[in-house]
Structure formats: structure tokens, C-alpha cells
């Protein structure tokens, strides 16, 4: 199975952060988990603006640490939400959780 991470970005991060790489990743884990939990409480009909902001933030911080597959899904949702065209079919929290767990597991395995 191929990686769900962008290893080039991660290589540069290791270069920048050095020994603090673990601290950075832990900060990402807790931050993104909180955001996902909040996201799962949101309702398409009334919270399109909130959803847009939340997935935008998730997209940004995830891409930052090379979590690209998850980040790309966030970006799709972000664009739909921004235009106000988000539907139940596109807003699949379960799938997001799955992709996030997959990425965090791989990150832990490689860098912690």
C-alpha cells in the first residue's frame, strides 16, 4: 500500500524542526482531533460557513505536516461549502475520520 503522506514536505519539516518534530506532530494530532470532533457536530443546512472555516483550517494544518490525501478531501469540501453547495453526500465525516486515523498512524510509525 502506498503512503497517504507527502514525504518531501515531511523531510523538510524534519530539517526545520529537528528534535522538536515530535512536539510539532503531537500538537497537530490534538488540534486536528478537536477540530474533527467539532466538525462532526455541524449540520449542513445551517452551518455551511462554520464548516467552510473548519475544513479550511484542517486543510491548511494537515498539508503543513504532509497529510495530503486527507487535506485534499478537506479542500473539496471547503470549495463546495464556500460556494454554499455542500450536500450530505459530499460531507462524509466517517470517511474523514478514517483518512485521518490512517495518516496519524503512518506519521506515528515513521516519526515517533
Amino acid at each position, binding site marked *: 500500500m502506498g503512503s497517504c503522506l507527502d514525504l518531501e*514536505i515531511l523531510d*523538510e*519539516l524534519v*530539517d*526545520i*524542526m529537528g528534535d*522538536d518534530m515530535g*512536539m*510539532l506532530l503531537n*500538537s*497537530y494530532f490534538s*488540534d486536528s482531533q478537536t477540530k474533527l470532533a467539532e466538525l462532526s457536530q455541524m449540520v449542513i443546512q445551517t452551518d455551511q460557513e462554520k464548516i467552510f*472555516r473548519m475544513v*479550511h*483550517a484542517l*486543510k*491548511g*494544518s494537515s*498539508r*503543513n*505536516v504532509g497529510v495530503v490525501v486527507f487535506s485534499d478531501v478537506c479542500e473539496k469540501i471547503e470549495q463546495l461549502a464556500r460556494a454554499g453547495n455542500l450536500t450530505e453526500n459530499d460531507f462524509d465525516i466517517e470517511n474523514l475520520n478514517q483518512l485521518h486515523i490512517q495518516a496519524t498512524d503512518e506519521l506515528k510509525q515513521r516519526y515517533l
Partner: protein
Amino acid sequence: MKILIADDNNTERLVLSRVLESIGHEVVQAEDGTTAISQFEQHAPELVFLDVLMPGYDGYEVAEIIIKESSRPWFPIIFLTSLTQASDLAKCIEAGGDDFVSKPINKVIIRAKVEAFERIIKLYRTVATQREKIQFHNEHLVQEQEAAKKIFNNIAHRGCLTSQNINYHLSPMSIFNGDLMLAAELPMGGMRLMLADFTGHGLPAAIGAMPASEIFYGMTTKGFSIPDMMVEMNTRLYNVLPRGIFCCVIVFDIDSLDNRLTIWNAGAPDSYLVDQENKTVELIHSAHLPLGIQSPQKFQVKCKGYTFSKNHKIIAVTDGIIEADNSEAEMYGEARMLECIQKNASKKNICAALIDELEIYCGKAEQADDVSLLEVAFPSHKTTDVPVIEETVVKASGTSDSVLNLKLRGKSLGSFDPIPLFLQTLLTCKELLPHRARIFTVLSELYNNALDHGVLGLDSTIKNDSHGFAKYYQQRFDGLREIDVGFVGITVDHRPTAEGGELVFDISDSGSGFDVESIVKEGSKEYSGRGLPLLLSLCDSIDYLENGSRVHAIYRWRHDDVPE
């Protein structure tokens, strides 16, 4: 360098902080817009990174607020954004940002941008420091100029320019004016005025104006004629002015005893002699190069003489008014000026009418040169009542008991004016200072009668018709230039008396004399032409001897003479 990072995303903030710290910068962090503003105020960062989307104030709002509120010198703002649409990026710059970087953060790009902005910040600081220095020097310079201006104004003072018969306009272009306007009363009544325009304006022009002014007031008080004064002034300016700086000048005496205008225009625009009764305007052209150009050996002054009465006005201008531009860069010009003077010829204040018209003509066009205008009417002196001037008196000093004797022969008659010499010597007796104007009048009337009517044989009745003065003056000028025979002898015997002293004037000339009987008779034209009423009112006695070629006059003064 201290850098503020405002980003609600922890990992992004951490990564960016680490990149900046690794190249030696100090980082202040804020996780939302409100904190960013307070951190900015507290830490005064030199560079600011702002995330676009943040809770509370977003990046655009933070940028607007800190730019508006800050009194600090310029600081760059760089937006962090994962937005990619051109309109979103343009908004970063519109909100006051100086640049933007796309996320995720790239170490190399961040370093390059920060280095570039560091260079710009340094440049800004250098400019700010230099501006402060320039400002400081400029303030210092203005203070110095203000102080210098006080001194300048004391030397180049306006004299009697505020007299009722004078209207004038002087508009200074800078602290010092390149135009100089001076006015002094003549020792024997009447006035001398000078309007001078130095090339350029400001300090260099003002420096040249100082010796010119000193010479003007010094020599006018001592009774020197216009030619003698201008020779002195040209010599001084020729020596002190650098090449390329010179002085256009109009100088004139209004002799209120003889109703005469004596004028000399050197390089200035035409002057205007206005006859308010006949509504005619005569132009007086420049007859010489400006001062400071010709060497003293070549310099020669030939004045023009005109009849000048209560119906006349003389208007002198500098080129500033003629060259004043309107909004189409078209000059006001001499034709419009003459037309305006003719139109307003009978007005009491022609000067004000001209300035009003000039203002309308120029509109909002910027003034490029000094504009100076001098308008002089007949001085309202009592011509037969020369005042005793109030001065501090010291008893029995200087030449209080002396005989002065001078005989001028041939060419010397045309080239030397003995009046200032006599006056200076007599006035070393300080008791005579209050009588300066009277003594000057007696001496110059007696001497000029001897020279004009005795030696040159001029007929004073020429002066009686309207253009007589110009004619008389021309004859006198020609006569003095060609003279090589004849003499005038002057003896002034100053003796102390019990009450004060007496000056006995004995003037003789080589002329053939005149019919004393008929001329001295009151009411004849010769009588007033020779200033006899005035002489009789000032002297205790006047006697003509040797068929009128010799005159004996006594002027008595007393210790208790008080100024009138």
C-alpha cells in the same frame, strides 16, 4: 529583527517560528486577530506575518487597524495564505500588505523574503535618519536667516518710505528680498529714492544690498549728488559682487525747491513720469548698464532732469512685474503695464491699481520673481522753512573757529562737488549738527548760483517753461563736461560769538556778473530762479559785490537754538 506571527494554526505558527528563529530573528506569536493587535502594540515588531483567516479580526482587518493606529515608521506586512485565487491575493495588497506567501511554508522562500524586507527596512531607516538631519539643519538655517534678517533690515532700512507722498509694494520671495527700496530726505529738503534689483534673490542678493544701502544713506545725508553716490556704489559692487551677479537700479532726487526730478536708470525697466493734470505718461529708459558690471574707470553717470510738481508722479518698477506670468505662461509685459498706468493716471494710488490688475492677470500662477513697485508724488515739505534738526550738542568743538578756503579751476569744476567736503568739515563742530540742513542749503544754493549762472552763464529763466528743466539740465551737463577755464572760490569763515557763532560765506566766480539791481528786486523771475527768497530767509545778510560775481552771506547760530 523582531517579527510578529499571527496565525490560528498551531503547527503553522510553530514551523514558521522555527524557520525565523533559525536565521536569528526574535519571534512574537499571536493565535488570533485581537491578540495580534495587542502584541503589535506591546512588542513593536519590525515585520509582521498575518494569516488571512483567523477568528476574531481576520488578517485584512488586523492589517488595516495596525497601519492606521500605528505612529511608528513603516513596517512590512506579509500575508500567509492558502487561498490561491487572484482576487484573494490582490485583497492582501489592498488591505495594506506588502507581500504574501502561500502555504504550506517553504523555508527557502521565507528566508529570501525576510532578507529582502530587511534590506528595505534598513533603507527606510537611513532615509528617516537623513530626513531628521535635514530637518534639523533646515530649522537651524531658518533661525540663522531670521537673525541675519534683523541685522539686514537695520542696515537696509526703509528710511522715509512711509512718507505720505509714497505708495509702494514689495513682495518678498524668500526671507531676504532681492529687491531693495530705499528712501531718504535730502539735506536741503526733497527726497532721494532708490529701487534696486539684484540678480537672483535670497541671501546672495541680500549681501550685495547691504553695502548699497549703507552708501545710499551715508552719502545722501552728507549731501553727495546722485552721480557721486552711484560712482561709489558701482565701485563697491564691482569689487564685491561675483561675476554674473549685478544690480539694476533706478535712483532719483525730487528737489522740492526747484520742482525738479533728477533721475538715473541703469538696467531697470522703463520708469513712468505721470502728469496727472494733462494725463500724459513719459517713459524714462535705462541709459546705462547695471551696477557691478563696468569697471570704475569706464563708469559714467548722466542723469536726466524733468520738471516735477504737485501734478506729477514718478513710478519705478523692477522686472518682476513685467515678467509675471499668467496661467498660460504669458508675461504681463510693458504694453499692459503702460496701458494700466494711463488708465489710472489720475488716481491717488496708481500702485494699488497696478497690483490689483496684476493679481487678476496672474490668477493662480506661481510667483517667480520679486515684484516691487514704487510710486512717488511731490513731497509736502515747506520749502522755505528748512528745519533745525534735533541732535546732541557738544560745546566749542571741531572747526568752531576756523577759515576754510577752496578754489576750483577749469576741469575740476566739472569733476568735483565741494559741498559734501565743506559740510563734513564744518560739522566736526558738533554745535552745528542741528543746522546741517540749513547750512547745506545756503552753501549749495550759493555755490550752484556761482557755477551755473556765473561760470557757465546759464539763464535761470529757462527753467520756467514746462520742458525747461530737461533743457537746463542738458545745458548744464554739456557745460560741465566741456569746461576747462574759469573758477569758483569758496571761503567759509566760522567764528565764535557771545551767543554762538557765525558762518561767513564768501563765494566768487570768474563770470561777468549780473545786473544786481534788477535781479535782487523782489518778484523778478531771476529772483526766485536763483533761490533768493530761501537764502534771505535763512541768512542774516546777503550782499552782492563786484558787479554780482561775488556774494557775501552771513549765517548766525546761537547756543540756545532749539529744534522746531
